[in-house]
């Protein structure tokens, strides 16, 4: 197939959705170019080095664990679609995680019946209600295009227990909900399956190895990728895209564009007249990483992979009025996966909800101070749960909503993007499509599935 255009497809963004979409199209012989503004691939889910340690920016855990033999599981489907060997992909399952509220605690791992027994123990009489919910989850097809349904409403009718409802929602919301307060039931189903029914794992090695594997696969199919290349404009003509204009002034033509930079980001590049406020997510986070010497292991209570905590009577998933809200959050021990070798240091990562506007307004003068204050507040609270881990830390670093915005171009640092998604990936332009976070599948595995799905539906036929 000859064409006048420079490329058949240009993908804006070399994050996980862009890489997956790139492999999928290049695999069938299309001429594809990925444009990434940074030096590295990975976007929200990347890495950096400090004092000789590799620090992963996104990965707490991957979701959707499945044994290689389970052909139809999303993880294995994804691998087949990208023609990556699932058998050669080594995984480490979680040890076990915990949802910790003031009055109740629930533990879970990758065996669903364990969660059931925990619910029976903590909420006698609620197990049947929980099983009814699990049945609803199994029966629901989250991929059929359907109307928004309130998860809160369905849970309150099915579970009839507000504490249990809040406890189940905390991990599912913090790992994949772009809306405040409530969640679309379709999204709840996706998250329930990927966390409670399938479960957490991490790949062998670091996220860097995982990204290398994807880039290598993409290049094997002659896919091209350019780093430090920022798209300044999507060039439109009537209802079609002609190509992209780079910040350097260079113009590249193509038959189609797949944008992974979110709805607001895409609107900005294409002069798409949108009511942007409705597409700006409010949920952003501050994350702090501490590296501790292994001698400290005994003094830190770290028998879980991830602890989801909430110190209030109720759980409110919303943007706080203060720089951060330390009353709820996530504590992750990236070393606590099965059969990982102990190194001479280990990490603790803490995530709390944060208010983008406050961080933005802090400007350069107050930013560092706000960071120290917020970090100190968070570590006091977390210290009460796992012990004073921060004493003796050899290294600490935090990133905030403005860091997320700067490194990923996610408007207002909204990790999960717009509360309104475009499920079919279509835009007002016939040959411009959206994939990744604002298409609707979230997380590492989710965003990759998003890239693959949009390519299958819109670009391969």
């Amino acid at each position: 197939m000859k064409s006048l255009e420079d490329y058949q497809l240009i993908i804006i963004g070399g994050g996980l959705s862009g890489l997956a979409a790139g492999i999928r199209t290049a695999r069938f012989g299309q001429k594809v170019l990925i444009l990434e503004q940074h030096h590295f691939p990975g976007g929200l889910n990347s890495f950096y080095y400090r004092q000789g340690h590799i620090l992963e920016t996104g990965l707490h855990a991957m979701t959707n664990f499945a044994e290689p033999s389970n052909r139809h599981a999303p993880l294995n489907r994804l691998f087949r679609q990208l023609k990556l060997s699932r058998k050669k992909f080594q995984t480490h399952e979680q040890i076990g995680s915990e949802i910790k509220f003031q009055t109740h605690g629930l533990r879970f791992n990758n065996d669903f019946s364990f969660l059931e027994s925990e619910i029976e123990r903590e909420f006698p009489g609620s197990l049947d209600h929980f099983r009814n919910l699990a049945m609803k989850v199994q029966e629901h097809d989250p991929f059929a295009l359907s109307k928004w349904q309130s998860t809160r409403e369905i849970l309150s009718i099915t579970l009839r227990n507000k504490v249990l409802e809040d406890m189940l929602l905390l991990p599912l919301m913090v790992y994949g909900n772009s809306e405040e307060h409530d969640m679309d039931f379709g999204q709840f189903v996706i998250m329930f399956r990927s966390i409670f029914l399938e479960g957490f794992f991490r790949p062998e090695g670091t996220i860097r190895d995982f990204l290398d594997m994807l880039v290598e696969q993409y290049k094997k199919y002659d896919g091209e990728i350019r780093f430090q290349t920022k798209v300044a404009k999507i060039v439109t003509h009537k209802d079609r895209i002609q190509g992209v204009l780079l910040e350097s002034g260079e113009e590249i033509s193509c038959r189609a564009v797949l944008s992974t930079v979110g709805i607001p980001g895409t609107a900005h590049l294409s002069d798409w007249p949108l009511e942007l406020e409705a597409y700006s997510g409010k949920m952003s986070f501050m994350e702090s990483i501490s590296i501790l010497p292994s001698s400290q292991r005994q003094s830190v209570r770290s028998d879980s992979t991830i602890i989801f905590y909430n110190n209030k009577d109720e759980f409110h998933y919303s943007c706080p009025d203060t720089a951060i809200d330390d009353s709820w959050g996530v504590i992750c021990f990236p070393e606590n996966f099965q059969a990982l070798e102990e190194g001479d240091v280990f990490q603790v990562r803490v995530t709390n909800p944060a208010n983008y506007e406050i961080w933005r307004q802090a400007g350069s003068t107050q930013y560092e101070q706000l960071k120290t204050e917020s970090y100190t507040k968070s570590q006091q609270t977390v210290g009460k749960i796992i012990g004073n881990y921060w004493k003796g830390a050899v290294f600490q670093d935090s990133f905030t909503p403005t860091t997320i915005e700067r490194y990923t171009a996610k408007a207002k640092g909204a990790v999960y993007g717009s509360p309104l998604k475009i499920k079919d990936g279509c835009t007002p332009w016939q040959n411009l499509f959206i994939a990744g976070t604002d298409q609707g599948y979230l997380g590492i595995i989710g965003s990759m599935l998003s890239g693959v799905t949009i390519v299958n539906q819109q670009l391969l036929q």
Partner: protein
Amino acid sequence: MTRDEIRDIIIEIIQDIDEEAEFDGLDADAPLRDQLDLDSMDFLDIVMELRKRYQITIPEEEYPELATLNSCVNYLEPKLQSVAVS
């Protein structure tokens, strides 16, 4: 291409899509989907692979023609008649 050659190509393509696929005892008149546990994404891969290798386009409404190994061969035979095995 002969019918046997087409048959081998289909098997080769499926093998390539699924490292686990088992062809021993495959019934050529029974649905591939059930016997090899293929899903719609796998079928899309077969179609795309045929397009990449032999430039043949198969419209979506004709996917059912690919249901069994024999129906694949019947359907592809006229399309691949003039193509030599590479």
